[in-house]
């Protein structure tokens, strides 16, 4: 068991490594891939970030949230509305992060201070996502607008202005630059998660996942810690929503059951309780679904469904931990 010093250094090293790898990919990939693949890769990265947010909340906070898509959608819509109303879309970014974080804090307060057991928590988060989906779906009328931004209901907001170079509203980021921003966000959030989990706050959150009563009896306000980690997860999901708004566009489907379910499958297959697993899991499964989409006559959801059933039965702890234990066994 190394002394804490080395543990912290190892986490710092991993965080820096992640940032370096991201920098390299952000510079090199756009030159290699053609434009269409770059845009698609940005979607994959936004989804991986959404998976990372759930990995943090579920894997480490022990909170199985069926409605992570709610904060994903809120992030996207908050960005779209703010970007349409503000001259420089750079100001829309704090709005796109703040709204989902506050929403997560509010929902967290209702659940954690209400002493709700985890099955009911799953139902409440699922229900909130459904409410948002139904509500946004019914805002097609032109009385539903916030400032200059029509909510557009089922149509979504296709005319969302993309991010522009901060301070210079004129020049809009090209898809390659959005791709670089996305990779930066993913690596940044991964590094932040690593540092959070090394901090005292992160240790208490993990301890709470291990044994909520013992943590309370040591004087830690369990509800506050869970609410905080849930809000951080909400913020990261909102960031993923903002990136999604920049490479596809914002529509009620962001709140749909499909997204909530998808992200749980990715984290589950990737490995609950790890950070890298869900990221890799998200990218692999999206590629698998895309490839399955091209097969004539084969329905992608059939393949995804089978993958999930097999994953639950065969590798309950998920891909990454199973792989690491395999590797460790083989290593001398």
């Amino acid at each position, binding site marked *: 068991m190394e002394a804490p010093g080395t543990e912290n250094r190892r986490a710092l090293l991993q965080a820096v490594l992640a940032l370096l790898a991201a920098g390299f990919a952000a510079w090199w990939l756009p030159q290699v891939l053609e434009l269409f693949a770059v845009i698609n890769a940005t979607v994959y990265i936004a989804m991986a970030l959404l998976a990372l947010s759930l990995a943090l909340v579920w894997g480490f906070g022990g909170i199985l949230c069926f409605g992570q898509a709610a904060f994903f959608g809120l992030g996207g819509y908050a960005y779209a509305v703010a970007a349409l109303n503000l001259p420089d879309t750079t100001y829309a970014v704090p709005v796109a992060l703040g709204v989902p974080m506050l929403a997560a804090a509010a929902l967290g307060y209702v659940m954690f201070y209400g002493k709700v057991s985890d099955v009911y928590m799953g139902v409440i988060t699922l229900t909130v996502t459904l409410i948002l989906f139904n509500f946004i779906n019914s805002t097609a009328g032109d009385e539903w607008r916030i400032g200059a931004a029509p909510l557009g209901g089922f149509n979504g907001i296709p005319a969302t202005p993309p991010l522009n170079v901060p301070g210079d509203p004129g020049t809009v980021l090209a898809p390659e630059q959005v791709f670089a921003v996305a990779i930066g966000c993913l690596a940044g959030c991964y590094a932040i998660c690593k540092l959070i989990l090394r901090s005292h706050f992160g240790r208490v959150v993990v301890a709470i996942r291990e044994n909520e009563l013992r943590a309370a009896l040591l004087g830690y306000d369990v509800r506050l810690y869970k609410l905080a980690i849930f809000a951080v997860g909400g913020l990261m999901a909102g960031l993923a929503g903002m990136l999604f708004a920049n490479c596809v566009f914002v529509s009620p489907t962001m709140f749909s059951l499909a997204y909530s379910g998808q992200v749980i499958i990715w984290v589950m297959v990737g490995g609950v309780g790890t950070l890298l697993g869900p990221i890799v899991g998200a990218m692999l499964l999206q590629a698998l679904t895309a490839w399955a989409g091209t097969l004539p006559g084969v329905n992608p*959801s059939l393949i995804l*469904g089978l993958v999930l059933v097999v994953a*639950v039965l065969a590798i309950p702890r998920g891909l990454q931990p199973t792989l690491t234990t395999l590797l460790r066994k083989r290593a001398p």
Partner: protein
Amino acid sequence: MDLALATGIQALSGIATLLLISLGLAIVFGMMRVINLAHGEFLMLGAYSAVLAVQAGVNLWVAMLVVAPLCVGLLGVLVERLVIRRLYGRMVDTMLATWGLSLGLVGAVTMVFGNTVAGFSAPLGSVQIGAYSTSGYGLFLIAATAVLLAAVWAVLRFTQAGLIARGTMQNAGMAAALGVPTERVYALSFAAGAAVSGLAGALIAPMSGVVPTMGTAYIARSFITVITGGAAMLAGTSSAAGLLGSVNTLGTFATTPVLGEVLMLVVAIVLLRLLPQGITGRFFRRSL
């Protein structure tokens, strides 16, 4: 006056539909603490088997009341043997496994039958209530749900099998100690839950389009109804269906269908927050 009567009928049929689609899930959840997220697809397969049976010339009523529950019940046994049996006690894993199953079933049916809206028109024509006419089939649906609920209650309450099932539900360990083959009880109750879902799917088929993805519209509502209902299987689900069903229908009357739906969901959340153990966590505690 007859507007009130017609609205009442409409509210009743809203409650009946909600109860019908939730009953199968309640049996499985109530009995085995298993949350079957493929429940929506069991409804869909019930509808499809009824439609196919009718197209194959089987009488409409036989198709709905016999063929559909039989097919989906068999599927239930298969699913329980292959998947659910390995995951007892692991609630989250069962949720995820059945979610995968749901995706798989939707994919399979879409591949085989495509997306077109099959289905058959509702029998029993229309019925006149004062100045309003409503579909006779709607009334039949209300009656059918009542009969089905009474049947399940009677089986659980009066028959030997029902007693064994309730015993296993209360305390599987003790039941096993008394020589009850709990494995078989779980298999049969899962199959029974699936059969009821198949029947429900077939009964609602004439009123709504039969499409591979029809399950998703129902899974969330039945999931919320069962959980809000709380531990007691029948009493909980019926009281929750009664409350949520009427809120949804009356909301739809007063405002728009969307707000009716949102209103119902908000009521469910408030209920879950005030009664963390569901309705029967506090009221009708000792009932079935």
